[in-house]
């Protein structure tokens, strides 16, 4: 397998992702009315009718979100005079010379200059072009934690350096001082057992819902109620807590409780909770559904091919037609109805919660139903195609019986295109299943995108779009690599591209 080819494909994948992101950015930031983002914002509602505070809030929020660049007369005057001085108070009034200079200056720079409704003071704003917006997003995408990451004016003598040590929960760790996270590398008992905080992705903070929370936190943090267990802090303080030591981050102002527990400024932490995160929930459900789908779909597909046009084939086709033709909404409800009445299983996930196996059964099977149908259909087709090929005729002439021909020849050939689709199936597990999760009230990824769109949470939309497209594009590449492993005829250097 030529290394050069893989790099080439990776490059093209990255370009694809970038273009997709550009399209998404354009759609979200230019096509969606910018006023809509305030629909779900409670602060906005509290500010009531037209007022200067409201205008200020609106524009500074827009600036925070990157829509525009926003400057007020106050900011301009701060470059000339001291804050709080009498010159300042005079300069910011709309009739002052400084205000005229401000207006002239920013108009010449292409800004729109306006006045606050009540005070009449000037402010100016200019839209940030989409490309610049996206470039800035990309620039902040990857964050590397170094001993100089923390710049705290209240703590100018902060020691900066790295050392090795142990975490209070017993793992080994690379400890940083001056870094945002205390433990840059550490081990503990949570999957995947070795964790790093050095390189992180930064998708921004969610707004207006989950306000202030980092997007990744929202998605990857475990949900539910805190799981407390006896814990000994570094200070010797003992308490019941769900603290995850590895998550300790720098906090500039410590309160009494912090000082009780921590010896240094690293006092912000995440806690262990009893429910898996959104991504976790969807992923677990997806994996089990996928395994079930392959475990049932493949054998049934083969059976249908072998008994072509007989009863087994006809029954299988009826199932496939039903699943394909009827909207999933309908048959999932139907299935749930059967499951709840006949087997007494809970109708929503939240009845018993994620700790109880019974909550998972119906959703997982519902999720797998369409995949089973699809696998049955395609497997049947591939197997039938193989059954008609010349080498099967020769194998028969060699004296092999049906079973041997199937196991040793047909199946191996038919599985090739199916294997190519496995990475894509895996990718599907991450994106979550919108309808299934909605019907069973599962707290997973499925509802994130629709609700983010409903709530005009642009940050989240962009983050999700990035995640989904990356996973999708890379799964295609992975599928092609799998193909070369399974089919000895294909070497990647010959493949000119996805086709």
């Amino acid at each position, binding site marked *: 397998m030529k290394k050069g080819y893989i790099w080439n494909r990776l490059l093209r994948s990255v370009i694809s992702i970038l273009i997709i992101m550009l399209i998404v950015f354009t759609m979200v930031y230019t096509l969606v009315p910018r006023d809509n983002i305030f629909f779900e914002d409670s602060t906005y509602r509290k500010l009531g009718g037209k007022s200067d505070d409201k205008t200020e809030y609106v524009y500074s929020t827009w600036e925070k979100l990157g829509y525009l660049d926003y400057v007020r007369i106050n900011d301009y005057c701060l470059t000339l005079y001291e804050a709080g001085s009498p010159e300042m108070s005079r300069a910011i009034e709309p009739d002052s010379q400084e205000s005229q200079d401000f207006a002239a200056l920013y108009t010449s720079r292409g800004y729109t200059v306006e006045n606050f409704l009540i005070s009449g003071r000037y402010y100016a704003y200019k839209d940030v072009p989409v490309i610049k917006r996206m470039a800035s997003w990309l620039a902040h995408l990857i964050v590397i934690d170094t001993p100089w990451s923390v710049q705290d004016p209240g703590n100018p003598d902060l020691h900066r350096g790295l050392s090795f040590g142990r975490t209070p929960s017993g793992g080994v760790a690379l400890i940083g001082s001056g870094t945002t996270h205390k433990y840059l590398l550490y081990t503990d008992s949570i999957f995947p057992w070795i964790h790093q905080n050095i390189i992180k992705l930064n998708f921004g903070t969610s707004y207006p819902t989950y306000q202030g929370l980092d997007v990744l936190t929202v998605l990857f943090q475990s949900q539910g109620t805190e799981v407390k267990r006896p814990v000994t802090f570094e200070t010797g303080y003992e308490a019941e807590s769900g603290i995850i030591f590895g998550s300790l981050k720098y906090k500039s102002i410590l309160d009494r409780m912090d000082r009780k527990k921590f010896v240094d400024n690293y006092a912000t932490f995440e806690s262990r909770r009893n429910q898996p995160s959104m991504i976790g929930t969807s992923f677990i459900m997806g994996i089990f559904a996928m395994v079930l789908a392959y475990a049932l779909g493949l054998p049934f597909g083969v059976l249908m091919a072998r008994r072509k046009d007989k009863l087994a084939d006809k029954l299988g086709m009826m199932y496939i037609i039903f699943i394909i033709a009827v909207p999933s909404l309908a048959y999932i409800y139907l299935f749930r109805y059967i499951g709840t009445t006949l087997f007494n299983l809970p109708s929503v996930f939240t009845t018993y919660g994620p700790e109880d196996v019974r909550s998972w059964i119906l959703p997982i099977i519902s999720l797998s139903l369409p995949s089973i149908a699809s696998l049955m259909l395609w497997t049947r087709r591939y197997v039938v195609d193989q059954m008609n090929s010349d080498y099967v005729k*020769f194998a028969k*002439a*060699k*004296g092999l*019986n049906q079973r041997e021909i199937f196991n*040793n020849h047909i199946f*191996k050939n038919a599985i090739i295109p199916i294997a190519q689709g496995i990475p894509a199936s895996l990718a599907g597990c991450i994106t979550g299943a919108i309808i299934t999760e909605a019907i069973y009230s599962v707290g997973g990824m499925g509802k994130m995108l629709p609700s983010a769109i409903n709530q005009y949470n642009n940050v989240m939309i962009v983050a999700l779009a990035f995640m989904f497209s990356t996973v999708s594009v890379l799964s295609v590449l992975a599928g092609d690599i799998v193909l070369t492993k399974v*089919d000895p005829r294909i070497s990647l250097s010959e493949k000119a591209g996805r086709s």
Partner: protein
Amino acid sequence: MAENRNVILSAKDVEVKFRVRDNYLTAIRNVSLDLFEGETFAIVGESGSGKSVFTKTFTGMLESNGVVSNGSVMFHGKDLTKLKTDKDWEGIRGAKISTIFQDPMTSLNPIRTIGSQITEVIEKHQGVSKTEAKAQAIELMERVGIQNAADRFDEYPFQYSGGMRQRIVIAIALSCHPEILICDEPTTALDVTIQAQIIGLIRDLQKELKFTTLYITHDLGVVANVANRVGVMYGGQIIEYGTVEEVFFDSRHPYTWALLSSLPQLGVKGQDLYYITGTPPSLYNEIKGDAFAPRNEHALKIDFEQEPPFFKVSDTHYAKTWLLDPRAPKLEKPEIIRDLHEKIKMMTDKGGAFHVE
């Protein structure tokens, strides 16, 4: 000439029908054939004459819409036409009767190693261990002329050339020492130079392993080179059969005449080449009389009315034509093939290969 005059396979009055678009097509109309142990028998004829179909009845490889509607094929006391399931055929297909097909490219499974495709047959029919099977396979590969057999054992079909693939196919077919080897146009898909090698290989192996070969071909050159006896098929029937010398130099059926006359080597510079007008008959309809009659310049009126029986020319030579009936007018062979013997000698003396197509 065959050493042993034991009949190894005997087909009698075989009739094969196919169901096509609600119509029935009779592909094989009442064919009988006795195969002798150790001989090389060639079946020649145009495309669509039924050559392949006939031999498929020997291995139960008819398409799903085909059925043997009459007759029997006796082999070792069993009637092969009565065998239906895979289990019935166990021990016969691949073990006692093997087939090699026309296209070596598609006869092999592209994603399995060459070696595994040989050993699976050996393991199945002989029940030996993997290592033993591998050893036998490598030996076989060497015998059919594959260099560095041990290294090439784990390679894939796409890494072999066409001629080498056909050698492997032959190796597979012979791996369990069958009694009969059916070769269905084994050289048609190969280069001319490779053709001679493959034919030679089969002939040498036959001498060594002592099996009976049944060739299906439209290549008269192959027939001339390796066959002991030949049968000419037309319209689903064998219309003439005998030893190669008899059929080539003393043919009696007008179709055989026409076939031989069509050899391009017999063409004279400056004159038109000979060809048979028309097309073979449709086998959907009942055929009245001799199937070749409409295209036969020398047809008798009775050829359109009644099907001719086999007339004996010699102990080994029979032809199904009314021309051999004592009541029929005497007819000489066409000019063009009258001195076939001389013409062939001239050709081969001059160093020209007696090869058709």
